[in-house]
């Protein structure tokens, strides 16, 4: 696998578990191919470590094709590295230069405790979804698609919000570790469609309350989340969530 010619210095965050302190550890790698993905480069590192009898670096990954949202490295100060609109697994070593030093850290947020090394516990996101990121209908036969006419613009906006893979890059890059982009995408994908209307204002209250309970920070509209999101989720979703939140608190008579 290592048939390339890149020499790299990695500074990787090593942390045994959430109760111990971590530190950056230096590793030298040679013979890295520019065609490798960033995770394949980590596979090479881990094979080296295993051969030397050391603990391999624990990191999250699953599909390795940019759609599952599992990979989560903070690379040289940016989530998913220097490229826009890609996840770490879709980042390739050709985006780096021979001789580079690359600093790799886990997502850092109180709501995302480190499990080990570069792996963090993102179940806070699951709990936010469980608080209201769904519609309550009994399943059955699929309806005729024309039963619910949806304007194209509306459908597109909902689809764009639904592209969120829940990787947590927005939280990782936000100076306040705020989860507003994630939560707003999950609210918007339903708020924009007719099926989401019955629970629209109940949903925004429950999900925002859960987001706050998880200990995420508060949004200051720096726009870093939108810039770093591998799926290009727009800040418009945050404005929509804020609007819905105001409506739910001051206009809707339903309280949660």
């Amino acid at each position, binding site marked *: 696998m290592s048939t390339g010619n890149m020499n790299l210095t990695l500074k990787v965050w090593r942390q045994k578990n959430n109760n111990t302190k971590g530190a950056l550890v230096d590793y030298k790698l040679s013979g890295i191919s520019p065609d490798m993905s960033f995770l394949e480069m980590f596979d090479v590192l881990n094979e080296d470590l295993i051969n030397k009898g050391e603990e391999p670096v624990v990191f999250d990954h699953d599909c390795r094709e940019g759609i599952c949202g599992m990979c989560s490295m903070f690379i040289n100060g940016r989530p998913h590295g220097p490229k826009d609109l890609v996840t770490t697994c879709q980042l390739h070593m050709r985006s780096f230069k021979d001789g580079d030093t690359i600093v790799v850290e886990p997502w850092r947020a109180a709501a995302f405790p480190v499990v080990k090394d570069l792996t963090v516990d993102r179940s806070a996101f699951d709990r936010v979804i469980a608080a209201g990121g769904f519609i309550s209908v009994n399943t059955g036969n699929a309806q005729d698609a024309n039963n619910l006419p949806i304007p194209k613009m509306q459908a597109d906006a909902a689809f764009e919000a639904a592209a969120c893979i829940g990787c947590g890059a927005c939280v990782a890059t936000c100076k306040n570790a705020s989860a507003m982009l994630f939560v707003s995408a999950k609210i918007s994908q339903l708020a924009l469609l007719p099926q989401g209307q019955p629970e629209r204002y109940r949903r925004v209250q429950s999900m925002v309350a859960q987001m*706050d309970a998880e200990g995420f920070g508060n949004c*200051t509209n720096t726009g870093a989340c939108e*810039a*770093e999101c591998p799926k290009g989720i727009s800040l418009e979703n945050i404005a*929509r969530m804020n609007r819905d*939140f105001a409506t739910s*608190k001051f206009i809707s008579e339903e309280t949660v």
Partner: protein
Amino acid sequence: MSGFGNAFSSSIGKKFIMGITGLFLILFLIVHCFINALIFINDGGLTFNIGAHFMATNWLIRAGEVVLFIGLLVHIFQALRLTLQNQKARPVKYAVNDGKANSKWYSRSMGLLGTLLLIFLVVHLKDFWVVSRFTGIPTVDANGHEDLYAVMREKFQDPVRVAVYILAMFSLCYHLLHGFASAFQTLGWNHSKYNGLIKGFGVWYSIIISILFAAMPIAVYAGLIN
């Protein structure tokens, strides 16, 4: 008031308060800047003193002044609360964090810019507000109004004070550059047909208001206003 629940204590609610008080302070700056710009009429401060006299004596303005101070204090208090919470949301900092790759420095430095403005405000209030409301303005002008204009001319003979005011206006400009559009976004006023207008107006507002304010001490110090 039952049923509002955590309307203002939730993260979004707290941001609403920041946005509303911020927009209120933005409106105040327009009034403040307009009255102060009367010095540029260059009539020995007669018009300016009429404006200052009105602002100091009209009961509606005085009541508004109380609301203004409350708005300012709420803006500051809420900012402190939010900042402390935000720091708690990331207890372990990044060793390397490339903020400039994804956001403007002033959007990440609102707390610092705001603190500089607060320090300036203490100086500024002591310079003019305390004098005009409490310790008294020593002289009157030809119309018999308190001569705040003379106080201002005297204060702006000091180059250090002029420099402090100019630097503060840089802070103000950058604070507003982020704050203006940010308040609209926080309040959910995001609309594809108006976003350009809000952003564009915000930039022009921030620059013009800061330049106008900064021009006052400069003009007085340079002797352009008599």
